[in-house]
Structure formats: C-alpha cells, structure tokens
C-alpha cells in the first residue's frame, strides 16, 4: 500500500521535472533565485533534524556543506575527464552529489561522536569550531585551490536536481520523524534521561541525526558548487551556518512546514528588497516621484531588523500551523 507521502514525493519529483523542461524559457535571474531557494530548503530541513527534532544545537552546517561541495566538485572536475566517454559529463553529477553527501556524513559522524557528551551551548561551540576547522583545512589544501578555491566547476545543476533533492530531504526527515522509530529523536530532545529509561539509546539517535543531516548538507553543497561554478572557503564560514540556523528557528524548531516556508521567505526577502529599490512611489507633495533606492543601500539592515522583529513577535517560530510535530496524530 503506497502511502500518501509516496505520492507527495512523486508529485514533487514530477513538478521539478516539469519545471526543468521550462527552465530555459524562464528569466535566468528568477531561475537563480529558485535554485537558491531549493538549496536553502535542503540545508534548513536537514539542520532541522539535528537542531529542531533531536535538539542538538549545531552551528557546523556550513562545514558539512563545504565537505560536500569540495568532494563533489573534485569528483566532476578531476575524475570526470579521466572517465571513458559517456561516463563523464552530467551523468557523473548524481554520483558526485552522493559522494559529497557520503563524505559529509562521515564528517557528521566524526563531529557527532566526540560531541555526544556535550549539550546546549557547549555543543554549539564545538560544532562551530568544527566548521571553522573544515574551512581552514580547505584553505590550506593547495590541491583544491587553497584560499582561491576551485574555479571552473562544470555547470551541472538543474532545477530538476535541486528540487528533487529538496523534496527527498523533506520526505526523508518527515518519514523518519513520523515513525515509531523516529519518535526517538523527539524523545531524546525532550528528555534524554527519560528516553534512556524507555530503552532508547540517545547516543545512537544523536549520531543518526548528525549523519543524516550532514549527508543532505553535503548534497546541498554539491548542488551549490555546480550552480555557482566556483567555490572558495570563505563561502562556508560560520555566517552561513547561522543563516541556516535562523531559518530553522524562524520556521519553528521541529516543524518541517514552517522551516521550508522560512527558507523560502528568507531567500526571497533580500531579493525582494533589491527589487523594491527599483520602484518609485508617486509623491503627493511634488511632481518628482519618491525613489526607493535607499532600500537597496540598507537592505541588509532591513533584513536583519525584520528578523529581530519576527523573533520578538513570534518567538515560537513564524509558522506554528497544526502541521508540525504537534500534529494530533489520529490513533486507531
């Protein structure tokens, strides 16, 4: 019996496929924004499994993204040309993404295991440090361009891959959490001592959360690299991690729908403010219309202020629809 979630996943894949067909007719600027939205959805939802559902405050998501970006770019750039004809090219993209995800998952395991004894602020600091270490390692690796980064990554990212993986991330995280197995994540989040008294191994669940979350962050990194066509260590600093954390907090920790909407909103908002700067309003007091160019100059300040205001008004997250983890699941 295929479940409703199967249909949703299938529908999402279909939509991304159709979107892909029409991509060439779209304004490239809008297409860019769409791809950014997709990448941010993958990042935010995967972090939601670690931060939101399992309650392990991680500030290292950009680090996992970097591992995935460098690994998959290395696969397509250095391995691609050496493969026999037909094996290289866009066909290599999926294996490259999976390789990036796998390496990031390995990094997730590496950061997950030593951090298990830590919670809260201490864990946040360790993961922050981890992200910075990753960045410094890449900056000092001459084989991947050092501080200049990698240039000339093949242009393989299409809306299909971006949105398929976004849909897959949402599917995986919500399927995991909405199962008898996956409620262990939330139990560990709520009360670790009580969870272990119920026979739940908190260690195992935390590590799984880190591995799965890091995997998708790695995939997102791969998509990002083959979309920007060049990556450098600066793009994966802790500011990037915090950007993703903001999406999760604003969306509501452990609320996938909210986090997806927050990822969309926070990606579109700066672009919208940029567009708004081009508008001009009719001036009731004079003949010259009022220019909104000042918005372009202060748009990052407006963006930050909006986040502050949103946090003050809705500290529980923007979207507390009854679709989150508090959904009243019908018993038999």
């Amino acid at each position, binding site marked *: 019996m295929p479940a409703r979630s199967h249909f949703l996943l299938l529908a999402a894949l279909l939509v991304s496929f159709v979107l892909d067909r029409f991509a060439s007719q779209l304004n490239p600027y809008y297409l860019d924004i769409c791809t950014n939205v997709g990448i941010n959805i993958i990042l935010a939802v995967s972090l939601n499994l670690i931060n939101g559902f399992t309650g392990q405050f991680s500030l290292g998501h950009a680090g996992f993204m970097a591992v995935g970006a460098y690994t998959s770019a290395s696969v397509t750039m250095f391995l691609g040309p050496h493969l026999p004809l037909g094996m290289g090219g866009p066909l290599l993209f999926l294996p490259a993404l999976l390789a990036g995800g796998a390496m990031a998952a390995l990094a997730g395991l590496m950061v997950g295991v030593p951090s298990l004894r830590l919670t809260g602020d201490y864990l946040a600091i360790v993961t922050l440090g981890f992200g910075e270490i990753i960045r410094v390692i890449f900056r000092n690796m001459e084989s991947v361009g050092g501080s200049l980064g990698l240039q000339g990554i093949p242009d393989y990212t299409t809306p299909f891959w971006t949105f398929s993986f976004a849909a897959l991330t949402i599917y995986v995280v919500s399927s995991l959490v909405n199962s008898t197995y996956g*409620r262990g994540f*939330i139990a560990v989040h709520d009360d670790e001592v009580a969870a272990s008294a119920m026979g739940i191994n908190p260690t195992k669940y935390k590590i799984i959360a880190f591995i799965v979350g890091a995997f998708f962050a790695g995939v997102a990194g791969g998509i990002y690299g083959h979309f920007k066509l060049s990556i450098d260590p600066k793009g994966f600093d802790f500011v990037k991690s915090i950007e993703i954390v903001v999406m999760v907090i604003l969306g509501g920790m452990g609320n996938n729908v909210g986090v997806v909407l927050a990822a969309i909103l926070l990606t579109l908002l700066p672009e919208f403010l940029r567009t708004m700067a081009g508008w001009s309003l009719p001036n009731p007091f004079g003949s010259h219309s009022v220019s909104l160019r000042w918005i372009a100059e202060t748009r990052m300040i407006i963006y930050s202020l909006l986040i502050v205001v949103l946090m003050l008004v809705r500290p529980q997250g923007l979207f507390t629809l009854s679709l989150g983890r508090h959904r009243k*699941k019908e018993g038999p």
Partner: protein
Amino acid sequence: MRDAPGPSASSLLRLEKCTMRFGGLMAVSELDLNLDTNELVGLIGPNGAGKTTAFNLITGVYPPTEGEVFFCGQPLRKQKPHQITARGIARTFQNIRLFSSLSVFDNVRVAFQLHQRSGFLQSLLRGPAFHRTERQVEQEVMEVLEIFRLGRFRHTLARNLPYGDQRRLEIVRALATKPKLLLLDEPAAGMNPTEKVQLMGLIQFIKEKFDISVLLVEHDMQVVMGICQRVAVLDHGIKIAQGTPEEVRRDPKVIEAYLGDKHQDKQRRA
C-alpha cells in the same frame, strides 16, 4: 527473608553490598537487597536516606562504586540505562519526566519502540510491513491507555495533563516497555489522601494484571505500609531494618530514624 547474598531460585533483583560514594559523601553504603518474582517491596527512609540513589544504581544511571547488582541472575555491571530497560527494568521518576512536547499517545508509543519498531530503512521506504507494525503499535498503545482510562486524553500534550494523570501516564509509559520489574520513585509525591488510596489500588492492580514485581521507593508510610509485602528501611545510606510492614513499624531503629529518639537524646545529655 532471603537477603543474604547468594543465588536464589526465584530471585529477580539482587543487590550485593552496593556502595555509592559521591566524593566524600557516602550516599548508599553496602546495601543488600533481594526482590523475588512477583513481589512488591518497599524501600523507605527519611529525606536524603539514599533511596533515589539506590534506584539510580539499579537502573544504571550511576555505576556502583563497589558491589554488584544482579537482575535475573545476570550482573548489570557496565550496562547503560537503555540496555537495562531492554532487559526488563522500567522506572518512573520522582520529578515527573514525560516527553512534554509529545502527546499522551506518542509518549506511550515511544516506549513501545523497544519491542516493536521498524528499522531506519523501513521507516523511509514505508512498505506494507512498516504500516503493519505501526498499526499494531497504535492498537497496543490504545489498549494500554484504555486500561488506565487515559484514552480520552490521547491527543493532549503530556505537559497539559493534570498532575495526577501525569503521574499515571509515567507509570503507563514505563509499563509499555514490558518490564519484569517496575521501579516506582515516590509515586505518591504531591498527592492528596484520596489520590493516595487510588494509587495504592493502582499499584496492586498493575502487579496482578501485568504479573510483574514492583520496587516502590516511598516517603509516605501510609502507602508503603498499605501495600508492600516486605519493606526495607534506609537511613543515611545504611539499611537499618527490613521485614514485613508490621515488623518494620515496631522496629525501634525505624522509629528513631523517623521521629528521633528521646532516650538517646537523654543519654547524650547525661
């Protein structure tokens, strides 16, 4: 009384000279305790006597500094709390520890995952086997909730339940792990006399219905004396008395621990 160390055929839980030291503080000192199958034993003592520490030794929260805990004849040394639960010891907490952001239903469902659950891949693929397991778990959760008349609260978030129901839900959740031994840590705390009487009935009922042993840590003499077959009394980490409730009630050491001893006071002054 089979509290002397040494194997006993029907012994379910046995503590042998368990000592727990926190730095210089001797929380529990050379505690011997034996619990048989289908027995209801009380562990009492004044505040700070080491009752909860004894609980934490049994459930693996702390490894004992010295001594050994045996369950079903097997030593529990170096077992993590979740492994001990898997072996069949479930517990409740003195300060209620429910999964507050989960519903009543999900609180119990989480506990069921110990015995029935789909694996990681199954949860992702969601095949027929997955749905069968989920339905089966849901059915069992409802059954056990109905037994304890919590069914109508199943959609309520655990943190929104009335206090007494939270206590009951914690017991139900512990039972959902299908234990052989249930440890109750001060279940009567914060209850009024009527609720205490109901609780005594509930504990008796659980013992019969689920055919399990119960170790009850309690502060409240009325509850302990009312239902326990045997009682052990702790004071300052040392077992000062044990026996039937009647025996313990008359034991001068117990009276002294609870009420203080006039005679001793006089002797000291003299």
